[in-house]
């Protein structure tokens, strides 16, 4: 009791120093909570965007396509769609797609920013079933959905914006057919899609499957199907697939993103670790000064018969007091910040427009409440602070009492 009181009083003896050090710690905690909230929000939203815009709950792809997905090749196609679709009827929803590379040609005379061509990956979609599986077709901000057999094209908003494309503008897609000859599809922009998915806004180019089929000479073959359904149904489906087909779960399809997210997580852990190291150096320094200034006083307390253990404990308590103040300030700042992050979010879409950071998030990113990050930073802050008192205190307490007393 007497120790606790003494530690508490000593804490305010150097109130300026205490406050500065506690602020450093508070900053560490604030950063931790902020980054953790932000990253969890980004992760969760990215996964959500993958699911609703790209992967569904799983996909069936032509064998070989996934392994060579960077080629976007027409060499791996599902030919027999009828027998496969017969197996899919039990699912909640499914839609076919055909992915292929093309040159996107555009002209200044048509309202584009310049004459030019751009390599793109086009996804041919089934206008009837695609909206049942994917969410982006609800977000055609300008124009309308493409129809079967229509020479129409849908573009992502940032893609369109960069080129100056607007609804009604004519576009040429130069493609290679399945057999290697070149052809050009003349299309008209029917709609522009704007979603909360940076990757989609930047890259999406959709045309009707019927048109693609005709020009690429694919004879009804497709790259794959995107599926929505229960885990049980999907598992059963996976087991019933024939040779030449491959089922990929949501987990398989987002594997690259997961490893990227894990990598940036560990990077962030390093940053947070560094912040805490800096904060604890601050605590250590403050305690060092405070304890050295008091060595004569320590000598007196030891003379009176206070044990080294008692004195050590009182210093540890004092340092933990600094930690506690830091945690208090940190939380006082972090809680309102996180309320803002969660409810309002930060609009950083402008940053993602021109370069790909790997996260599929909206312009407005929302944080998440994570009790763990509060708890973890508080415990770490408290423990680290306490430990920081041990070294300087021990240095004084291992000296003979006479030495403590000798100089003032």
């Amino acid at each position, binding site marked *: 009791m007497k120790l606790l009181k*003494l530690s508490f009083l000593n804490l305010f003896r150097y109130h300026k120093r205490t406050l500065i050090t506690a602020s450093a710690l508070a900053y560490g905690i604030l950063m931790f909570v902020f980054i953790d909230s932000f990253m969890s929000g980004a992760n969760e939203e990215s996964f959500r965007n993958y699911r609703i815009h790209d992967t569904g709950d799983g996909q069936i792809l032509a064998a070989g396509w996934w392994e060579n997905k960077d080629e976007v090749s027409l060499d791996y196609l599902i030919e027999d769609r009828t027998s496969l679709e017969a197996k899919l009827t039990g699912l909640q929803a499914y839609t076919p797609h055909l992915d292929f590379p093309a040159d996107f040609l555009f002209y200044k005379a048509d309202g584009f920013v310049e004459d030019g061509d751009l390599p793109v990956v086009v996804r041919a979609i089934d206008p009837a079933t695609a909206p049942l599986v994917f969410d982006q077709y609800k977000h055609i901000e300008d124009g309308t959905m493409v129809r079967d057999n229509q020479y129409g094209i849908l573009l992502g908003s940032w893609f369109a914006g960069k080129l100056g494309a607007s609804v009604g503008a004519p576009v040429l897609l130069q493609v290679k057919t399945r057999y290697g000859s070149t052809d050009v599809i003349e299309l008209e922009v029917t709609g522009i899609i704007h979603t909360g998915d940076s990757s989609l806004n930047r890259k999406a180019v959709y045309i009707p499957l019927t048109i693609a089929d005709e020009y690429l000479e694919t004879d009804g073959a497709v790259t794959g199907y995107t599926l929505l359904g229960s885990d049980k149904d999907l598992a059963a489906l996976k087991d019933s697939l024939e040779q030449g087909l491959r089922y990929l779960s949501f987990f398989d399809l987002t594997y690259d993103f997961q490893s990227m997210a894990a990598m940036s997580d560990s990077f962030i852990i390093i940053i947070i670790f560094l912040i805490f190291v800096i904060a604890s150096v601050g605590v250590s320094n403050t305690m060092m000064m405070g304890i050295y200034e008091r060595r004569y006083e320590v000598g007196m307390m*030891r003379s*009176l*018969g206070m*044990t080294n253990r008692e004195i050590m404990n009182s210093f540890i308590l004092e340092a933990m007091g600094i930690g506690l103040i830091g945690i208090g300030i940190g939380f006082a700042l972090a809680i309102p910040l996180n309320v803002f992050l969660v409810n309002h979010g930060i609009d950083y879409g402008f940053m993602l427009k021109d370069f790909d950071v790997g996260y599929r998030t909206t312009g407005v990113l929302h944080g998440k409440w994570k009790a763990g990050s509060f708890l973890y930073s508080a415990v770490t802050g408290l423990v680290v602070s306490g430990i920081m008192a041990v070294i300087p205190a021990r240095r004084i307490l291992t000296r*003979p009492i*006479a030495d403590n007393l000798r100089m003032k």
Partner: protein
Amino acid sequence: MIRIQNVSKTYRSGDLAVHALKDISLTIESGAFLAVAGPSGSGKTTLLNCVGCIDQADSGLISIGEDMVSEMDNTGRTQFRRRNLGFIFQSYNLIPVLTTYENIALALQLNSNNTKEIDRKTREILREVGLQGLEDRRPSRLSGGQQQRVAVARALVGNPKLILADEPTANLDSHTGEAILDLMKEMNRRHGITFIFSTHDKMVMERADRLIRLHDGEIQSDTGGKQ
């Protein structure tokens, strides 16, 4: 009775050896009011520290009452100081964040949890040393003489066998120093507590019942035989 037998203490720093105490032997009666004088570096502080169980002699024996303190280990000496000794320091050495009352009570709290008893003893000693009305002041708002009074009270309050005071008046003007010494003397008379104090001050030496002069770690003179 305090017995000091053939006590030596040498400080070494590198190749240099300082013989701070050289084979000191001395017997101090209970209730003594003993001054240790001598030039700077003569070993006064070292002697007081060895008797006060703050420092350990290299050789020789020290006993206080029945206790052979020179044979105790660190923990034993800490316990012994807590129960049996009081200290007064040259620069008062109060805890600045505690009030007069709390500084004095702290010495008792080390040995007891009985708040009533602690309060009673603290108030009693406050009255005895004439600090009524200053209970709630912090040291920074007390004069040097008042602070040293608090220090005397802190040393006395646990009713120790022996109080050691290393140059208790050195930071005080002569008038205040005299008052502190009178207070110590009075407590010595009234409670029979043994006092050993070091000093450079003639006035202080004259008030001692017994005066030992040290020189280069040896006893040069001792008025103890004459009384």
